[in-house]
């Protein structure tokens, strides 16, 4: 009797083990068509908005269990676009993003805090050019099912802290220092 009981126990554990491992923190895959990364800067006191069309990421996130979560978002800086072509060309140049030398911008975080019913904060580091600085994202969960999730959020950074806009462009009167970043990320469970 006892023998059969232990056998059953071990068998059950063995069967469940892989399931338990996967269940730890689910991994998500970004759906590019339903995700966006935009920025709004201020030129001559008026807003100007652009977009980074390409970004990828590793997302391990479980809203019900925030410890052990981690994300890494990699932005292809050369995918920057703006309605005014001359502007995106300027932003790719050495004084701004210098995309030839620094093709990627990276946000990494493993520190998540729930701030409301569906709102979260993610404290991490953002690397643009050769500067890595702490940045906190705020985001709202807009959709969450067993297989799909969508979040929307933003943060504000100081462009000159990252060396974006050098030389005469370090002046923050005509092109303000604060830049708002808005993002929507749709992801499916892997």
């Amino acid at each position, binding site marked *: 009797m006892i023998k059969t009981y232990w056998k059953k126990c071990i068998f059950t554990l063995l069967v469940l083990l892989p399931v338990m491992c996967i269940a730890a923190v689910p991994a998500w895959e970004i759906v590019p068509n339903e995700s966006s990364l935009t920025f709004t800067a201020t030129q*001559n*006191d008026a807003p100007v908005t652009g977009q980074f069309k390409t970004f990828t990421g590793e997302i391990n996130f479980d809203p019900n269990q925030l410890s052990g979560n981690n994300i890494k978002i990699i932005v292809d800086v050369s995918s920057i676009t703006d*309605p005014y072509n*001359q502007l995106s060309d300027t932003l790719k140049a050495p004084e701004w993003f210098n995309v030839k030398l620094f093709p990627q911008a990276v946000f990494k975080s493993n520190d998540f805090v729930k701030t409301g019913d569906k709102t979260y904060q993610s404290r991490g580091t953002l690397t643009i050019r050769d500067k890595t600085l702490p940045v906190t994202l705020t985001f709202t969960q807009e959709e969450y099912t067993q297989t799909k999730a969508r979040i929307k959020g933003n943060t504000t950074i100081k462009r000159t802290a990252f060396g974006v806009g050098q030389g005469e462009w370090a002046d923050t009167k005509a092109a303000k220092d604060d830049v708002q970043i808005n993002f929507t990320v749709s992801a499916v469970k892997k």
Partner: protein
Amino acid sequence: MRIKNSENHYGLIAITLHWMMAILLIALLALGLYMVGLPIGLEKLKFYGWHKEYGILALILVIIRIVWRFANITPQLSLPLLEKLAARTVHWAFYGFMFAMPITGWLITSAAGLPVSFFGLFVLPNLIGPDDHLMKLFEEIHKWLGYGLIACIVLHTAAALKHHFINKDNILRRMLS
């Protein structure tokens, strides 16, 4: 000097608006012609910012001016019919340019996705969405309107000076005091 126009004289409001806009429009034309040739840089960005907000100021002033023009009489022009026709044609051409210049400028900056702030007080709405093709089209129209406006200023100034120094009449003086 009276505030309103009379049969033979312009009033204080009309004279002030005329000379404010004369200075403003000439400065905007000069700045516009200069700034387009600059290489991309902080100076160019600043000059474009000024050109846009002072351009909107010109639009506001021309609206006030046309309301004022219709709200009171226009002093008579005692000139031969053809000269009178020429003078009035140039005057109305000015109104056309004074509206068309800022509006096409506003359309350019709207199509470029670069909205205009009016001296930091408020941001103007974009008239149209971002469109590279339309932006280039409006740029071309704005440029040729600018040349047309310069031609009108030359004609108008030459006529005013001719009346003052050759005909020795009061045409220029009545816009001065």
